[in-house]
């Protein structure tokens, strides 16, 4: 039984980023359809990764690769911790480390766009990390920091917190209005400019792991004692959130970095605060 659970966890750790890859494929397809195009097949992200791996490596200096690899491993560790039912906070910080490693990778390539991209990625971190952190603390306040102990009810007690995860995901999915760090038309996909071939694939997969972790957070909001309902509900919730981000992407222009930070630190942080306050008031009233 124990072994079985262990195997299941390992499976989830492997499958979750793959699911994210698929989700990104679905995202591209839906986006294309919203733009009245046919769009790529849903497995396109996997083709891309496969293609990238088959390219001949080309790099500026080895630090880039070290940091891309580090990003991947840290993100994987964060996800592993999450799946193993570990401490959410630790997982969050580890995942943050992965994000920082990518920034370092961008900086270490001495290239103008990559440098500006790194700076912007830091700004993005400044924007989304507090919100993510607060969301996790709110989850910790409501349930537990241990994923395995959280249980249900978050959707009802922390709906606004779930809402704040949407802009976080918008940033992480590199979607407008907050695709500031990778802004294609300004800084040519920013931190990724100097990555190519297999190294780009590594950086990309690292991002998948990171997204898997954040989507994991989203799925925590749904819980049911029936495992089938639970899993179905979690997936449905994740899809709904993904769909909302896609819609947002398609009806907005990219905003500037200042607006991004301001929005996240006021609206994002504010929503968490309001949620906690309401919760407090309701609890006081009820008991």
């Amino acid at each position, binding site marked *: 039984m124990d072994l079985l659970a262990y195997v299941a966890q390992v499976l989830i750790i492997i499958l979750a980023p793959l699911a994210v890859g698929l989700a990104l494929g679905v995202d591209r397809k839906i986006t294309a359809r919203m733009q009245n195009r046919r769009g790529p097949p849903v497995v396109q992200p996997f083709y891309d990764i496969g293609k990238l791996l088959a390219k001949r490596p080309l790099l500026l200096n080895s630090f880039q690769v070290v940091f891309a690899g*580090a990003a991947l491993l840290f993100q994987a560790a964060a996800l592993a911790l999450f799946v193993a039912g570990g401490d959410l906070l630790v997982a969050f910080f580890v995942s943050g480390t992965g994000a920082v490693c990518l920034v370092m990778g961008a900086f*270490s390539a001495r290239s*103008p766009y990559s440098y500006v991209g790194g700076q912007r990625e830091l700004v993005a971190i*400044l924007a989304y990390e507090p919100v993510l*952190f607060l969301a996790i603390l709110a989850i910790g306040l409501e349930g537990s920091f241990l994923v395995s102990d959280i249980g249900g009810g978050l959707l009802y007690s922390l709906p606004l917190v779930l809402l704040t995860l949407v802009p976080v995901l918008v940033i992480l999915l590199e979607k407008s209005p907050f695709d500031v760090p990778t802004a294609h038309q300004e800084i040519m996909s920013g931190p990724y400019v100097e990555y190519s071939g297999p190294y780009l694939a590594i950086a990309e997969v690292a991002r998948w792991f990171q997204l898997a972790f954040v989507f994991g957070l989203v799925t925590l909001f749904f819980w049911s004692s029936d495992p089938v309902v639970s899993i179905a509900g979690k997936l449905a919730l994740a899809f709904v959130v993904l769909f909302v981000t896609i819609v947002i992407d398609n009806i907005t222009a990219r905003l500037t970095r200042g607006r991004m930070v301001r929005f996240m630190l006021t609206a994002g942080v504010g929503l968490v605060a309001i949620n906690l306050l309401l919760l407090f008031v309701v609890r006081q009233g009820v008991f």
Partner: protein
Amino acid sequence: MSVGEVLAVILFLVPIIGAAVVMAVQRRQATVGTVASISVVLVLASVGLLLYLASSSFEVLVIEAQDLYPLGPVLIAADLLLTGVFVLIGWRLRSVLIAGAAAINLLLTIWLAFRTDFAETGPAMVIDNLALIMVLITSIVGSIIAIYALRYMREDPRQPQFFAATLLFLGGMNAAVLSNDLLWLFLFWDVTTLCSFLLIGHTGTEAARSAARRALIITLGGATAFIVAAALALENYGSMSLQDFPVTGLDGLALMPLALLAVAAFTKSALLPFQSWLLGAMVAPTPVSALLHSATMVNLGVYLLLRLSPSIVSATSINWLVSLVGGASFLASTILAMTQSNAKRVLAWSTVGNLGLIAMCVGVSTPLAITAGIILLFYHSISKALMFLSVGAAKEHLGSEDIEDMQGMRTTMPFVSAALFIGVITIVLPPFGMFASKWLISSAATTFPLLIFLLGIGFAGLVVFYFKWIGNVLSAGPVSERVTLRTDPLPRMYKWTLGALMVGAVGLSVLIGPVLRYLIEPFIALHFALPIESNDLSLFTSSGTFPVFVFLLLTGIIFLGLAFIVRPGKEEISKPYASGEEFEQEFETRGIYFTTEATVAQGIKLSEGAGILLVAALIAVPLLLEVI
């Protein structure tokens, strides 16, 4: 006298004697010899003290005043003398504030001495684990900095003065943390004030002098708060022994000593609104900054808070104010650090932030938070010293402390870059020591939901300003030859000191389990229920686990392994993308600082205002409670 007592006395007396020797001989060679040998003595003595305490399974070592016999009266005399000196300094500097504060201190000290019949009201010294940790930090990190300074200050014409002050500083610091009696503590508190004044003003330039003066004003103001608190403690609790501070039933005016001591601690630790002296102190030579920021001075403030934590915990009407001052300092300083491009200023703000965090931990008042605070204090000093000394080394080579000028340092100064990198990752990233405390604080802060908002933004800001800097250091183009750490044009003395700190920062992070179990928990256990367990591989709290070892291993594998595997030369090296243009020569970059000088000044004013309000509230609350 037991071995422990002897060691304790060595720890503070030897450096003070050393200072006298250095002043007397006035020759470089003698200075080097003295400083080096005293450093060795300090390191050995502090480790010896650790071993001694460990042998008695960390029982608290109490040293009565009569054991130290002629010392007591001498010290009281010294106390009066020193306060007198401050009056004189105030006179010389034509500063009413300094002279006035010093005069009040002098009068109160005399009055207190008479009140207590020139005797102590409790044990003179108490060596528990908190004191032990502080002694270890001061002695070992302080010694390393002193040795580093031997090289750094080699061309300074007034070396004896400098090193005398440094040694005195270390001795005073050690004595301060060992002292239990408030009057003793007050003396050594003032010793550190004096030393910091001397060291900050050492270069004698206009900027240095005004910075020293400002430092003196603020810390002397703190000292006044301290001595008033001592007097009030004597009145209210009937004792000036820190041990005897009541841990229950504090209310009304009885809170006042605590509140005032907290304010005194804020001034020492340069928390808002008193941060300006520490920022101004940046004009001093780098070893001074390192000393102030990591081994001595600012630690004393938060040490006092931690020391008083059992009382503060029970003082529920003011502890939230303490935590707010800490939290506000943390948030404001991280935001301000993001706007700085001078490396030392960045570090200074981050020190303010970290100390704020420790103060916040004390204010949060859960055992978990206090544990977090001590961990933070311990690891912060090592990493901060490492970073300051690296900046000093970089400055010697680059001639600048600006982080923009450090661009590409990875290829020119790999050793220093590695030191900076390790300094940053041990401060910011998991799974190093500081991170453990971050994690604990985050868990602990949930009892105080307002603080989590400060923390959330603050942590993100921390990442931003540190990595902006280190990114600059690591940013370098392709290198045809492999750069090795050995090729760094760095004096051997720097390599050794930086190396020792690097090893310490990483090694102690690996050993966080034992550190927690043997160094920190005994202190916590004295006063609280143990909030955290460790099995050397992981840390556990009631709400979470942190598999330290797994992550350390992972990090090690990641950085060392990848750096080993990935070597340049195997792959095709290409030119950076520059829209098709050749861009080698013209390339220049500059980081983001978000705002302008004017806004920064405004921000500082704003946060100082908030700090003043909070501190005023801290003093007003006991009064109000008394009135009600």
